[in-house]
């Protein structure tokens, strides 16, 4: 099993004719994902790696005999992203991966609120999507199929990361250690994202394949505090191992500076790495100092003898 997607998941790509979207489409198709259409206004009638392009989401649905696709990957410029997500939502799509960076926060908050009203889920923005090793990937995560295969092998660890690149680095480490990955999600680097760690936990909790969780975290925001609260309130069966990057940002000279991602900035006391580590640890989440310590920490937690 997996969470959110599997080998049968159908999705579309909005903004499919853009340079990055063309690559992403090829990568996903090569990996075995089912892309049932693409949308770029004004480009109806074209094809991208065999995927038919339409002007509207509605046309894609009509083309597929009224079948609403399970998901959409949105990769359109920031000024048009909100409209694209709204179009997907209003057409009944329930899982939307927003790749676009630098979308104004108000727009993000608007489409996330609308998604909540409609019972849909947003992953991102500013993310690389998600992958279920050996089955499907939705987004640029892991890169070309052969590279994704190298870093992601099926296994027992659920991965959630605020950094797209670090999702792959961590998963590769888990794969090399023989633990493998159940589902890996690049959740996005913005201050407001559609799905936080705590919001995804119940899905992993319900997934039998997943036996442990690894998260990659950064300074800025309250997402880690929210996870710590969730862990305290829910008697989760899943042990969590966390890696915190950006500890150097706690230095006085770095206050108010943003590094890495838009949401990675120390503004208040609760935003610091030190404060987050303390909160996570207080909730029983182990915070490791190095990426290469992750596999052993996971093995210890799930009661396997470290190799």
């Amino acid at each position, binding site marked *: 099993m997996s969470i959110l997607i599997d080998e049968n998941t159908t999705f579309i790509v909005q903004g499919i004719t853009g340079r990055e979207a063309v690559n992403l489409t090829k990568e996903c198709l090569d990996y075995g994902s089912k892309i049932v259409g693409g949308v770029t206004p004004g480009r109806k009638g074209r094809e991208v790696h065999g995927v038919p392009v339409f002007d509207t989401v509605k046309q894609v649905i009509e083309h597929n005999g009224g079948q609403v696709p399970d998901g959409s990957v949105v990769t359109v410029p920031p000024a048009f992203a909100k409209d694209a997500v709204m179009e997907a939502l209003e057409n009944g799509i329930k899982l939307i991966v927003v790749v676009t960076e630098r979308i104004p926060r*108000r727009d993000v908050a608007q489409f996330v609120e609308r998604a909540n009203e409609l019972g849909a889920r947003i992953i991102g923005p500013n993310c690389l999507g998600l992958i279920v090793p050996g089955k499907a990937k939705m987004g640029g995560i892991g890169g070309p199929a052969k*590279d994704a295969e190298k870093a992601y092998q099926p296994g027992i660890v659920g991965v959630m990361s605020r950094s797209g690149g670090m999702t*792959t680095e961590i998963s590769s480490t888990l794969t*090399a250690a023989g633990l493998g990955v159940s589902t890996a999600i690049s959740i996005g680097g913005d201050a407001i994202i559609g799905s936080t760690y705590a919001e995804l936990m119940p899905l992993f909790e319900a997934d039998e394949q997943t036996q442990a969780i690894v998260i990659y975290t950064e300074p800025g925001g309250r997402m880690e505090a929210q996870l710590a609260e969730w862990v305290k309130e829910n008697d989760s069966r899943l042990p969590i191992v966390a890696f915190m990057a*950006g500890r*150097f940002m706690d230095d006085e*000279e770095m206050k108010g500076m943003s590094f890495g*991602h838009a949401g990675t900035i120390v503004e208040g006391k609760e935003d610091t790495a030190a404060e987050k580590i303390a909160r996570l640890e207080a909730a029983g989440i182990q915070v490791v100092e190095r990426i290469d310590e992750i596999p052993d920490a996971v093995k210890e937690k799930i009661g396997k003898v470290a190799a």
Partner: protein
Amino acid sequence: MKFFEYEARRIVELAGIPVTKYGFAKTAEEAKRIAADIGGEVVIKSQVLTGGRMKAGGVKFASTPEEAEQHARDILQLEIKGHKPRGVLVDPKAKVKQEYYAGIVWDGTRKQPMMLFSDMGGIDIEEVAEQHPEHVGRGHFSNLRPFSDFQAKEVIASVGITGSRLNRLTPILAKLARLFQQYDMRLAEINPLAELEDGTFVALDAHMEMEDEAVFRQKALLKELGVPEGDKRESYEPSEFERNVAAIDAADHRGVIQGKDHGFHGNLGLVIGAGGGSLTLTDAVRSVGGKPANYSEIGGNPSVKKACGLAKEVLKKEGVDKIAVMMSIVSNTRVDIVARGVIKACIELGKDPAETIAIFRIPGAWEEEGYKILEKYGVEYCDRSVSMHEAARRAVEKVQGAAA
């Protein structure tokens, strides 16, 4: 984008919130004229994008226009935490009965804007929230549905305010909430919001920050405020290194490079990426006693020229004679292109790549091609089997070995 106080006051004023008869002056003479215009006692406030003005001597009171001129002259010379003032704000000294706080912030957990209101204004709201939580009212509002005044009223009433005060404060907080949405603010604060002796309310100080990502669609407001296009308003003055890297990045649309050296004083140059990878690697270098000379980010598959440009700028920094070229596993950026870029940088600066590049650890797309090039030049490299932390340790060891 942060706004100066004089701009923030104008934003508040445009939203229909009452302000004092303030003026903005760039010279002491102008300040004198404004003070004479106002008549009576005035306050002269330094216009800098940093806090702690009062402590630093950036806020002074004057009873005559001449005194105002003198204070303005002093304040205009006064640097506060490395910031030169943009000018001074001349404000009539208000007869304040009580100070309040009104603010709108984003709540990332609820994913909605949140109103904050307190009858204990004039001090830091975080401090009030900690010590007197019963004096802070809070209320979220929808991103989709129109804001209704009762939502502001509920927040104000929740701290025990009633009577004509409640009725006068409600539209102020409501207007603040609306301007927060209308102008894409990430923070909109009036502190203090003052109740004067005659029972009226004015915004005595305001703090506004706009989402950087929304600047493109707020041109009308920026024009109204006289903010020139491209006015970046960094929280500090960018260094030569930072300016040069930004110029190299802007000159070529392929890929992204970023460089920062504010707060970095070490001797190991970092040519690293991507977002999360750079954060991880900077920590990794420091955790084994290394001293980074800078922070950087490579992403989105930059050209050879761009990678070369970044490496050169890092190598030109004083005290840097070795660089560590490291990234988390790449799937978009090409290993061979970065390898070519950093080797080219060494050669163009007359340095031996094998000596200069302490370690090259970028696994992923086009790695075989990249490693071949590195081998040719005798540069130590490693693939994904060597962790980011181990690579950082090897780089630091080389720098320290060279120094010893």
